[in-house]
């Protein structure tokens, strides 16, 4: 008997690709055996000498591990870069960077290879999915996605999203599911519409996103993130109570930021702490179930981590030469060093888990910093999960 479910399974099987790679499996097996052998030898020696037992965590299979930047590392543009080949699997991406203003952009893969990205225009609007699998870049007025693991490419045509002249597609935010990217059609920041792209479907399915219930898409409508429930997290209308609404939030010192899920972020570390000031607009980002907001005060800049209910979980003061980038697979990431300098910049991750309690609240200990990479002083970077930047 054939049921609808039987039939859909038969239809779905046509989408499967060939993932089998015997040599990769054999290489992984060799690595595991070597590791096990070394672990056993170490244990035997230590037990024999001191009777001390080493407890080693079971190794994570290499193929299941999230790609990681291998610190310490120095990233420099290759002398003879190959363009990212369309339709070819190159492995997960860990970073996109441009060594200088108006230079070519490069994708760095988990095994350290670099590929030149031939986008048009040459800079800006790149994105990498949170798991490093998908890359997006502008090609003319359209947007192209690359599946770095499966090898597929898909073009999202601008005119399929908006017919208004002058509007271009820009990556806006990745959802909680790393297969879905929200693109905005905008002109000078004025958003016409949002679409959600399912990158995992050949050809990349497009779903038009309605504005939140009861609201028009306005110049200020701006999703900071999409939660696991599928709902956008954005500024709430209550923000009007603080100021006449404007897309530009510089110049207004927000002590509280109401969000569309009913929570309110509060800057309460000190009387002078605010979420924006005359020089800085709001910088609020979402990763998973955590909200990160940059605050400014007489003591300097800090990144504050909140849960979805607006409860403050950690406060991470930044050093004077650190610029906040955003949450990523590596923790909250900042760039240390002066952009545009002749020297170098360092990509540093802050770990909100390394916290200490003090009379002023929760703060990050100095051990919560990890240097990831050194980049040219003029480099700009895009990390996995970053879209609008």
């Amino acid at each position, binding site marked *: *008997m054939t049921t609808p*479910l039987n039939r859909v399974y038969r239809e779905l*099987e046509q989408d499967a690709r*060939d*993932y089998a790679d015997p040599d990769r499996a054999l290489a992984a097996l060799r690595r595991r055996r070597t590791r096990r052998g070394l672990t056993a030898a170490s244990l035997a020696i230590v037990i024999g000498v001191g009777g001390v037992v080493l407890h080693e965590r079971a190794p994570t299979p290499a193929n299941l591990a999230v790609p990681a930047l291998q610190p310490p590392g120095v990233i420099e543009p290759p002398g003879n870069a190959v363009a990212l080949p369309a339709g070819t699997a190159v492995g997960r991406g860990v970073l996109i960077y441009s060594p200088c203003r108006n230079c070519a952009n490069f994708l760095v893969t988990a095994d350290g290879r670099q590929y030149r990205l031939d986008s048009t225009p040459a800079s800006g609007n790149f994105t990498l999915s949170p798991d490093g699998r998908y890359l997006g870049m502008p090609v003319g007025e359209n947007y192209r996605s690359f599946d770095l*693991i499966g090898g597929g490419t898909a073009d999202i045509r601008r005119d399929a999203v908006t017919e208004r002249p002058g509007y271009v597609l820009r990556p806006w935010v990745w959802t909680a599911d790393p297969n879905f990217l929200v693109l905005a059609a905008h002109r000078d920041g004025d958003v016409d519409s949002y679409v959600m792209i399912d990158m995992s479907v050949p050809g990349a399915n497009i779903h038009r996103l309605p504005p939140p219930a009861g609201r028009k898409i306005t110049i200020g409508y701006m999703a900071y993130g999409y939660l696991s429930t599928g709902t956008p997290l954005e500024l709430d209308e209550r923000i009007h109570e603080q100021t006449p609404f404007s897309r530009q939030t510089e110049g207004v010192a927000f002590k509280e930021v109401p969000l569309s899920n009913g929570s309110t972020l509060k800057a309460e570390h000190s009387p002078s702490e605010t979420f924006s000031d005359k020089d800085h607009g709001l910088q609020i980002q979402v990763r998973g179930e955590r909200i990160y907001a940059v605050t400014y005060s007489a003591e300097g800049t800090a990144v504050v981590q909140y849960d979805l209910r607006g409860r403050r979980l950690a406060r991470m003061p930044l050093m004077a030469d650190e610029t906040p980038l955003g949450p990523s697979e590596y923790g909250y990431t900042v760039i240390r060093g002066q952009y545009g300098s002749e020297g170098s910049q360092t990509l540093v991750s802050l770990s909100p888990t390394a916290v200490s309690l003090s009379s002023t609240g929760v703060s990050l200990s100095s051990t919560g910093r990890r240097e990831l990479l050194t980049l040219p002083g003029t480099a700009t970077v895009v990390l996995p999960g970053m879209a609008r930047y």
Partner: protein
Amino acid sequence: MADHEGFREFVLARGPALSRTAFLLTGDHALAEDLLQETLVKTAARWRRAMRDGNPEGYVRKIMLNQMRTWRRPRRLTFLTVGEVPETAAGADEASQAERKVLLKRALAVLAPRQRVVLYLRFYEDLTEAETAAQLDCSIGTVKRHAHDALKRLRKVAPRLLAESDISEVRS
């Protein structure tokens, strides 16, 4: 070395079929790739045993199903846009097929691994409850429970997948 050659030949020959199984169990290319890769690593480690019974494919599938059931991956946040999938005009079969596939992929994402395995065996491999129980080394009651829970979940998130007949009545 000879073992490795045999393993290579087997994977090259049966890779596409095993890939299909992995994809239908996960509904996601990245997960399917990870699942199959992990399965192949384990198979390579026991290749002689796999060959001993003369049915290496059955052995590999068994490893894959067990791997799927016990896989300790971080729980994946699932984004559902089921409600936004547009209604299809009658006769637009291709579009309708694409939508059904999207629905199934998303539905699989919200099912527990054991429920996905049971659905796969029952509705793709077409096994009876008894055969499914034998494959999974569990009781028929357990199979029934997982199938019931899975279908209940599907009815909630993707009723169109079950609309044309009452699947719970499929032969046991």
